[in-house]
Structures are given as structure tokens and as C-alpha cells.
């Protein structure tokens, strides 16, 4: 045989090997021939929802997950004692009701009858105890365990290995009753139980799968509205309706394909081709689509702000800080720079977050920092005089295009309105965090997403012991207000303390300069309804979705 033929043979063999190794992941894995049809079937199947996430799904182990995408998937395949309804209010789910003691410290949950895991076995109170204890176990080493240990009696001690599991304040007197003891009255505790870290885990199954738990569709037991039928961290998940779910009659979508699409323009192309039912728009594309009937916006509980470092010589000057606060218009940021559904911020606590007496916190507080160029100029002049020289300023920002745009906007506004020269220092994300921790910054564009629906999730941050990351800020009056709110049982008094705290933080002490509340601009096909995006917790909720 000629040499050439041998080479050809080897080449063909090599190509075949590579082809077989590259595991194409079509919904129909059968053959490449009917792949051509996929586009049309995906679009033509009028019951299946086609959605996407803009990043990898690193892991679906509820004990390890730390990102919003994993939480979103988990929230649809698992369920806690309560679940957020379409209006983001906690409603009974695995629990049918709860009794709360008068001092607000003891919660007694009664589980629903006939709730089942996807393997047919019942969901019991012990599953909750096991799940919560494993989450708090120091051996699990989950960085998110604070969301339990902050509230449950002895949770933090158990997490540090100081007490045994049976001393932690949760118990299951019988299969259907769960008693939880809290450290302090926590008006938002029911909404916490909707979160992924509060999900039950079945002991036998977990221990059997340990290292593989949550790494594949058959490595997880489901008690939520859907179950996982395929999972690839880099390409996506498929969800199918869970027939064992207690409320299955109210779940109308039989199947959901969720792909991983990192590029905004790719998602837009797929949406326009009818292969996606929902797409998030990047700010560049909003103008083109904003009159489209399919266009919409939402916001979530995530506030962006400039953190001033009070430990810096220049920023220690209150007048300089206030001048910087007043010298730009967040509305321009919202309309021109972001243009993606985000809303201009005049305070720290995002709109929609709970206040007291049926009002939201923002409604009660109103706007705190309104742009006022005249005042800003006056304060700047006075501040410069006190410093004795025109200061050089720098603004630290992560290498993220939205953050960089924000910084460019601030730079131009401060120059125009104050004549201040501000240089922008860009660092990779972890580099920015490190620089802030190391006290190596003057101002930084920073953000915080709420862990739960209560202003405490924000106010608590600046009540921690003085540290560079939070701008070296320490004010006893502020800390006292936060501590008082933590102990207070009365809703009105508690909120009054928090309102006052926000005022001190922003207006009196000018520790932060508010920028915007994060939002999304999106398009959604007209035949899709009830696609719910919770502003905190497990964001995407498909339970209420319908496709006609």
C-alpha cells in the first residue's frame, strides 16, 4: 500500500476520534441529520420555553453554590418551607403554615401532607434539619453559611466548631414539624426560608453521592416544580415538569431549555430568529427596540455607589465628599450611559424593598442626595481651602464595561462641574477588592446585592468594626441605630431606626455617593407570560410561567 494512503487512513481515523470526543449536545442527541430540524422544532414547539443564562452554571450543589445562576436553577428544582409568589411575597410551600411565638424568636413550621422527593419518598422535617446543619457544618466550608448562622441560635458557634450539632436551635419533634429558635426577632425570616441555602437535603441520598452531589441530573433529588433532565456547566440545563410536585396543577410549562450564552449580541440574534423567548438587551441596543411591544424593564435589589475612603487625607474632608456627591446627575447616568432599565439612585436602599406599615423603605425616606451643582461648587471651594491645595483624586473601578462607563461618566461630570481632575484606576475584579481591603484607594465604584428583603442587608455592612473595605467609616450613633433595629420587635420603631441610619450614612457623613439601582432591559415574546424575576434570593422563577 502506498504511503500516502496510509497517511490518509490515519488522518480519517484521527478526525473520527476527535468528532466522537466533541460530544455535540443537541436536544435530540440521535444523529446529526435531524439537527437541521432542531431550530424549527425548538421554535415550533409551542409549549417549551427557551431561555438562557449569561454565564456558566458552575455547580448545582445547594451546599456549595454561591452565584445567582446556580441559585436560579436550584430555586426551580428544589423548594424550601416558603416560596416567593409572583409578587415576591413569601407564601407557604413545603410548609403549610407556621406559628410564630410572641417574642418573635420561635418559629414552628408544619409541613404539608404528601410532599415527595422525585424518587417518591416523603419530604420530612428531618430533611430540613439535615440540610441546614450540613450547610452550617464547618466541614462543608460554604462561604454562604452566614445566611443561616446569623439567625439560628448557636449557628455561628457550630460553624466555628465550638458546639455540637444538637445544640443548634433547630429540631424536628416529628416528621411534619420543624421548630426553629432565632437569636433575635427577624421580621424577614420567612422570606429567608425561600432561599437555596434553606432547602432540605435527604441524608441517605447525599451521603451516597457526596462528591458527585449536584454534578448531574441523577445526582440530585427534586422537590420543586421542575426536575433537571440534563446539565452541562458550559452549555446549559434542561428542566422538565416534576410530576411529584405538590402543586403540579399550577405548573403549566412542561419543559424549559436553558442555554449558556455569554455574548449579548448572540442572544439577540437567537431571539430575533425565534429560538429564544426572552433576551436581555445591552444598552447599545435599547434605543432600537424600546418602542417594540415586546420590550420591558425590571429592577432588582442591587445598588451601585461610590465608596469614599475616609481614611484618605483628601476624602477625610467632609466638604470634598459632599461636593463630589452633589456634582453629578444620576438621571443622566440612567438615561444615557446605562440605558438598560437601571434607575437613578438618590439613596442606598433600592426601591421596592420593604419598609413598614405597607410602605416601602424608599417611599418612607424619599430622596436623600439630589444633584445640586451650585452647592457642590461652593462646598468644593470651601473644601479646597481647608485642604490648602487642589487635591488630586483617583477612582478605582473593576474591568467591567458598565463599571468603566460609569467611571468615565463621573470623571467627566466632576471635571465639568467642579473642575476636579480625577484619574481612573482600572483593576481586575479581585484586584479591586484586594485594593479596597488593603486601603489602597480613594474612591471606588462598588455595589451590593441584597440577601433578603430588608434594609438591614445594607445597613449592617457599615456597622461592622472599622475596616478599609467599607471606607474606614465608624460612627457610634450609626452603629447604635443598627443594633437597636436588630433587637427591636416593633415594626415601626425598627424601621424608624433604619431610616435614620441611612440618613446619617449618606447625608450627614457622606460615606457613599449613590449611583444607580441595577435593572434589566429585555424583550419577551408576546405569547410568554408569568416569567418571574425575583429582585433577590433565587432570581429566576419559572413556576408561574405560561406559554400560549
Amino acid at each position, binding site marked *: 500500500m502506498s504511503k500516502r494512503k496510509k497517511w490518509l487512513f490515519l488522518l480519517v481515523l484521527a478526525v473520527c476520534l476527535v468528532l466522537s470526543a466533541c460530544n455535540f449536545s443537541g436536544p435530540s442527541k440521535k444523529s446529526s441529520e435531524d439537527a437541521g430540524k432542531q431550530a424549527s422544532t425548538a421554535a415550533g414547539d409551542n409549549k417549551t420555553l427557551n431561555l438562557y443564562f449569561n454565564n456558566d452554571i458552575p455547580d448545582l450543589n445547594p451546599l456549595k453554590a454561591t452565584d445567582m445562576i446556580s441559585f436560579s436553577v436550584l430555586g426551580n428544582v428544589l423548594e424550601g418551607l416558603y416560596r416567593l409568589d409572583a409578587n415576591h411575597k413569601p407564601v407557604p410551600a413545603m410548609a403549610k403554615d407556621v406559628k410564630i411565638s410572641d417574642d418573635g424568636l420561635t418559629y414552628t413550621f408544619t409541613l404539608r401532607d404528601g410532599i415527595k422527593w422525585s424518587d417518591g419518598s416523603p419530604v420530612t422535617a428531618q430533611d430540613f434539619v439535615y440540610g441546614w446543619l450540613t450547610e452550617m457544618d464547618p466541614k462543608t466550608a460554604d462561604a454562604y453559611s452566614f445566611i443561616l448562622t446569623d439567625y439560628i441560635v448557636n449557628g455561628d458557634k457550630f460553624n466555628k466548631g465550638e458546639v455540637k450539632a444538637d445544640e443548634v436551635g433547630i429540631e424536628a419533634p416529628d416528621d411534619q414539624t420543624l421548630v426553629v429558635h432565632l437569636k433575635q426577632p427577624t421580621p424577614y425570616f420567612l422570606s429567608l426560608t425561600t432561599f437555596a441555602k434553606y432547602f432540605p437535603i435527604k441524608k441517605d441520598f447525599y451521603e451516597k453521592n457526596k462528591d458527585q452531589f449536584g454534578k448531574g441530573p441523577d445526582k440530585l433529588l427534586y422537590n420543586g416544580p421542575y426536575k433537571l433532565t440534563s446539565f452541562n456547566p458550559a452549555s446549559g440545563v434542561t428542566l422538565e415538569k416534576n410530576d411529584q410536585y405538590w402543586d403540579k396543577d399550577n405548573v403549566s410549562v412542561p419543559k424549559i431549555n436553558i442555554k449558556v450564552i455569554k455574548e449579548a449580541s448572540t442572544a439577540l440574534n437567537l431571539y430575533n430568529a425565534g429560538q429564544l423567548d426572552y433576551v436581555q438587551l445591552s444598552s*447599545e441596543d435599547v434605543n*432600537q427596540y424600546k418602542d417594540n411591544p415586546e420590550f420591558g424593564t425590571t429592577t432588582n435589589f442591587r445598588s451601585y455607589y461610590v465608596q469614599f475612603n475616609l481614611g484618605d487625607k483628601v476624602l477625610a474632608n467632609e466638604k470634598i465628599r459632599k461636593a463630589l456627591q452633589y456634582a453629578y446627575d444620576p438621571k*443622566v447616568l440612567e438615561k*444615557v450611559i446605562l440605558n438598560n432599565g437601571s434607575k437613578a439612585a438618590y439613596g442606598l436602599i433600592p426601591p421596592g424593598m420593604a419598609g413598614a406599615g405597607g410602605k416601602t423603605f424608599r417611599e418612607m425616606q424619599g430622596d436623600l442626595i439630589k444633584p445640586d451643582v451650585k452647592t457642590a461648587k461652593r462646598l468644593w471651594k470651601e473644601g479646597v481651602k481647608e485642604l490648602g491645595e487642589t487635591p488630586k483624586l483617583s477612582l478605582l473601578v473593576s474591568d467591567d464595561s458598565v463599571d468603566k462607563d460609569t467611571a*468615565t461618566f463621573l470623571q467627566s461630570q466632576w471635571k465639568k462641574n467642579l473642575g476636579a481632575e480625577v484619574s*481612573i*484606576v*482600572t483593576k*481586575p475584579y479581585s*484586584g479591586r477588592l484586594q485594593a479596597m481591603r488593603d486601603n489602597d484607594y480613594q474612591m471606588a465604584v462598588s455595589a451590593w446585592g441584597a440577601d433578603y428583603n430588608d434594609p438591614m442587608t445594607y445597613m449592617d455592612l457599615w456597622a461592622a468594626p472599622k475596616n478599609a473595605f467599607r471606607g474606614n467609616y465608624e460612627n457610634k450613633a450609626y452603629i447604635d441605630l443598627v443594633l437597636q433595629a436588630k433587637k427591636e420587635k416593633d415594626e415601626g420603631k425598627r424601621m424608624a431606626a433604619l431610616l435614620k441610619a441611612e440618613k446619617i450614612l449618606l447625608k450627614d457623613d457622606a460615606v457613599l455617593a449613590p449611583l444607580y439601582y441595577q435593572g434589566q432591559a429585555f424583550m419577551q415574546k408576546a405569547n410568554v407570560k408569568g416569567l418571574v424575576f425575583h429582585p433577590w434570593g433565587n432570581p429566576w422563577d419559572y413556576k408561574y410561567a405560561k406559554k400560549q
Partner: protein
Amino acid sequence: MGMEKAHLTEEFFAPIATDPKGMESVARDPSIGWRASWRRLKKNRGAVISLAVLTVIILLAIFGPMMTPYDYAQADYEESFKTPSGDHWFGTDKFGRDQWARIWEGTRISLYIALLAAALDLVIGVMFGAISAVCGGKVDMVMQRIIDILVGIPHLIVVILLILFMKPGILTISVAMVITGWVNMARLVRSQIFKLKAEEFVLASRALGAGFFRTIFKHYIPNTAGLILINLMFTIPSAIFTEAFLSFIGLGLQEPLASLGVLINDGYHAMQSHYYLLFFPAVVIVALMICFNLLADGLRDAIDPKMKNK
């Protein structure tokens, strides 16, 4: 030829003359060659046109920003995303900044980057490759392993560490590019010299007493010129985009400065709705590169000693 070589030993190639002035006295006066090259270059239409276009681009890079009343850094939020018009010739970006001014400002920076990359390639790359190949043996082995190691360590790690220890700016970009920017050139020159080492004229020159560096500069490098030029044409655009990446992650230029690479990257994100943000900087960079290439081709035809019978 190979057979004969086997009988020859090192002694046969001992230099015959030690008088440095007499070295290779058969070589022609180099100035004749250069003048002839220039004459040949002038006859090449493509090269002449591209020289003219290049001049125009360079003049625009110098004077372009002065031709509009707008400053490259001046933001105007009323004028965001304006399409090209008599007022803003190349339109405006998200911040309402004039693209005409920004593009020519950016061209300046990108031309500097191009120059820097070319210089690094020529100085470090060519010399490293030449020495490695001419010495051969153990020296080559060690020098090539150094390249392997430089390529093997993830560049991004080094770059992030640079961000921590240096102030962002042109100097830092240069440092980041020094690390590996020249590697391809070195490998290419090395491979070519290995090939040349076996050629007769090199042997002849050695026999006539040419020294180590003289052989490199008089024979090896001129005979590699074609390849060197072509490789430069690949190094330059990749350096321009490397700079854009470095700027994005915080090592390079900081807002409001922008280079062509940065403008193209930004324009890419807006290309579906605002094509002109990508189109104009892309046109400038493509025009630059086409001119460079035509000029390089012309130069190659003009100076490459192997092309003399053309």
C-alpha cells in the same frame, strides 16, 4: 554536496586574512546597493501610493483632532450616539464624544504601539533568533527553552501582576509586550538561519574571514529580510489589539484616552445598532495595514539580494 562535506574539517575554514579592512574585499560597495534599491522602490506603483496614503494618515493623526472644534475627551450627554453628519464627521459615541477627534488621537497611540512592537521584534526578536541559530548546539537548546518557558507561563497572570506593581500607561504596556512580543520573530529568524547555514555563500564568507557578527549582519539578516518584514506585518496588528486588551483590564491607557484597538473593541459592542463606531476605526487600521504591507512588499522586492534578477 553532502558527501564532499564529510571530508572537510574545521581546519579548512581557517581565516586567511586577519586585516579587518581586507575582509571580504570582494564585496561590492554597499551604497550602490542602497541606491539601486531606492530606484527600484520608486518604480513600484503600489509602494508609492501607499507611501502617500501613509503620509496622509500620519498628517491626520497629527492635525486631525485640530480640524474639529470638539475635543476627544469632551463629553456631551445631549449628543450621545449621533450618526455621522456635517457636525460630527464620524458620529459620536455613547458619551457624545466626537469620533473624528477620538480616532485620530487613537491613531497616534496605535502608531506608537506599532513602532514599539516593530522595534522590539527587530531588536530582541531578530538578535535572539540569530544568535540562537548561529551558535547552535547547547546555546540554541538553552535559548529555545527560555522561549518555551516564556510562552508557557500564562501571560495574563504576568500582566495582572504588572497592574499591581506599576502605574498604568504606555511604559507599562511596553513592559508587558517586551515579555513575549518578540518570540515568533526569534523562532522564525532561527529557522531561516538554520537553512542559510547550509548554503555555499555563507561558507565562502566564513572562509574569507568574516567574523561572527559580520556574518549575522552582512549575510544572515539581509537574506532573512523578506521573512522579517512579513512577520512584522503580523506583529503590528496583533500588538495593536494586545494593547486594547491590556487597556481594558487596566494595564494600558485609561479613559478618556483611547487607541484604535480600544475604539474597535468598543465599536464591536455597538455594531448592531451603531455600525459607524466600528466601521471608521476599522477602516483606518485596515488602510494602515494595507499600506504597510504594500510598502513592505515593495521594500522586499527592492532590497532582498535574492531578487536582483527581477
